[in-house]
């Protein structure tokens, strides 16, 4: 997967170890230290960087796991660590002061003051911004902080403040922050009722129900359908299953000084990664050369077959 991204033209690829130290702790994803070693060599040979995600929260008693991951990443020579936990950031800043630190969106830093705190304390070199800011807000923020900024351009359209969500732990006893897994596959169940509808559950909780002609989605709590007294028919109480796609906005993002563009690639197929990364590579190169980006159709790859420019255009979605 890392190679697919590098081959398709990614400048940098995020990866993590096969444990709770990163926010995508899922079976079949992620790297052993040997795999990370060979992947870093491959990426570097092809002019790409490797960013090690240590962006979950180390609960007391488990901190050594994060320390070992940081030490291992430093030994292998990853190009940066992306962190959210203050303790983890402090450890890396102190023990590996030559390493670049990036601030994960999981840190929940959505103001210049919050980002400046992390920059002052740990020498953060780049902050990944939450997906809730408009272009003018990004411009204003960029002017008030000393570090680079990175924004999501393709993938999940998340509206919960990341790193501040215990919904999965409430529902099934696995913590997104501490265990690195939101809606873990081991707790997902699909059942079919007598009418042919598919019922998608997380643990003992029904998250959505799909008519026989509907495409069944993954049961993520904040993408499910629920009922309330105010609105008794089932509705998406939090958000629709929809994908973020900012390809059309690349010129605007470049103009306000976004330094890096992030595509969500983990938990995805090799074909998805190749297509999306390749498409954005071409579009970014076009923008850099002063041409209009050639917008390729990524709709077929998006969740629920719908896409949005999310918060980046207006505040109406709130």
């Amino acid at each position, binding site marked *: 997967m890392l190679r697919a991204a590098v081959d398709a033209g990614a400048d940098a690829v995020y990866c993590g170890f096969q444990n709770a130290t990163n926010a995508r702790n899922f079976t079949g994803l992620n790297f052993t230290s040997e795999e990370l070693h060979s992947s870093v060599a491959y990426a570097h040979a092809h002019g790409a960087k490797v960013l090690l995600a240590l962006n979950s*929260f*180390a*609960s*007391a*008693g*488990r*901190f050594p796991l994060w320390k070992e991951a940081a030490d291992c990443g430093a030994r292998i020579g990853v190009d940066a660590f992306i962190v959210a*936990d*203050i*303790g*983890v950031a*402090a*450890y890396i800043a102190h023990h590996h002061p030559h390493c670049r630190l990036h601030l994960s969106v999981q840190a*929940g*830093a*959505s*103001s*210049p*003051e*919050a980002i*400046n*705190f*992390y920059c002052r*304390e740990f020498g953060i070199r780049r902050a990944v911004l939450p997906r*809730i800011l408009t272009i003018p*807000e990004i411009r204003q923020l960029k002017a008030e902080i000393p570090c680079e900024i990175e924004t999501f351009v393709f993938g999940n359209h998340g*509206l*919960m*403040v990341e790193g*501040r*969500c*215990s*919904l999965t*732990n*409430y*529902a099934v*006893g696995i913590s997104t*922050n501490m265990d690195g897994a939101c809606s873990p596959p081991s707790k997902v169940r699909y059942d079919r009722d007598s009418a042919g509808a598919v*019922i998608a559950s997380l*643990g003992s909780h*029904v*998250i959505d*129900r799909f008519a026989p002609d509907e495409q069944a989605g993954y049961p993520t709590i*904040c993408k499910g*359908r*629920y*009922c*309330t*007294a*105010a*609105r008794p028919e*089932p*509705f998406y*109480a*939090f*958000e629709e299953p929809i994908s973020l796609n900012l390809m059309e906005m690349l010129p605007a993002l470049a103009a306000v000084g976004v330094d890096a563009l992030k595509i969500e690639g983990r938990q995805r197929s090799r074909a998805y990664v190749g297509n999306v990364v390749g498409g954005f590579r071409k579009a970014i190169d076009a923008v850099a050369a002063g041409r209009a980006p050639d917008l390729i159709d990524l709709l077929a790859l998006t969740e629920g077959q719908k896409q949005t420019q999310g*918060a980046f255009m207006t*505040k109406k*979605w*709130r």
Partner: protein
Amino acid sequence: MAAKLTLGPILFHWDADAKRDFYARIADESPIDTVYLGEVVCSKRTPFFDSHLPEVVERLERGGKTVVFSSLTEVVLNRERKMTTDLCVAGDHNIEINNAAGLIATKGRPHRIGPMMNVYNEETMVHLAGHGANHFSLPPELPGTVVELMAQRARPLDVAIEVQAFGRVPLAISARCFHARAHRRSKDECQFVCGKDPDGLTLTTLENERFLVINGVQTLSHGYLNLAAEIEDLLARGVTHVRLMPHRTDMVAVSTIFADRLAGRSTGAEAMSRLAALGIGPFINGFWHGIAGHQYHDARGPVVA
């Protein structure tokens, strides 16, 4: 030192009169030691109560309560940035910080760290204590075993450890208002519809499970966290402050029940039956026991794996 009883900030949008009456009773009749004031969920709500704050503070202090001002959880807009900075820079009042935006302004001034600050380990606690944090309200999802390790490190640092023991549990916060969305409105046109639900609006699953509660931009548990039966365990693990979250039930009664537990005047079973008699619930305590938060683990029964 005996553990202290605290009252967290009101998370819901109660009208100003309801809040004033509520705090008057707390001031005069409750055994609570410390009261956290301030809007922590939605910055749009703040104008309604700001003018009443001085009077409420005076009343609470007259009742012998320590007053702490809590800062907003999510800080994005310019007015939210200003609210946070103003609270953390000026004055000599006690503050509890709920967003890292507040940390840049404290400049070593003593402060408390709120439950939304993601203090999951001793290293984070030590770092923040080095900048003046002297009291940590831990994330509600932390199990008792982890709280114990935090409390062991807190003692030599001389910082306090606070844990929520009553009330619906904050689980997530968003930039979008779910209350407005449920009423087919946007946040900018919300008309403060969240005020209709003083304990939150229940979301039921498609199989009629009462699952979650929404409160403006916040999502909470449907069940009420209740650690009344675990008080000895909390104290043994080193918790110094026990937090109750305000609800529209009789909070003087709730606080009295917890105060009796802290003072050893009643058993867990007695407290549980007195709380059940208030007509609230269902009760949950899964997080403390390291299992799914929506569950209730009866410490007297068989151990749930």
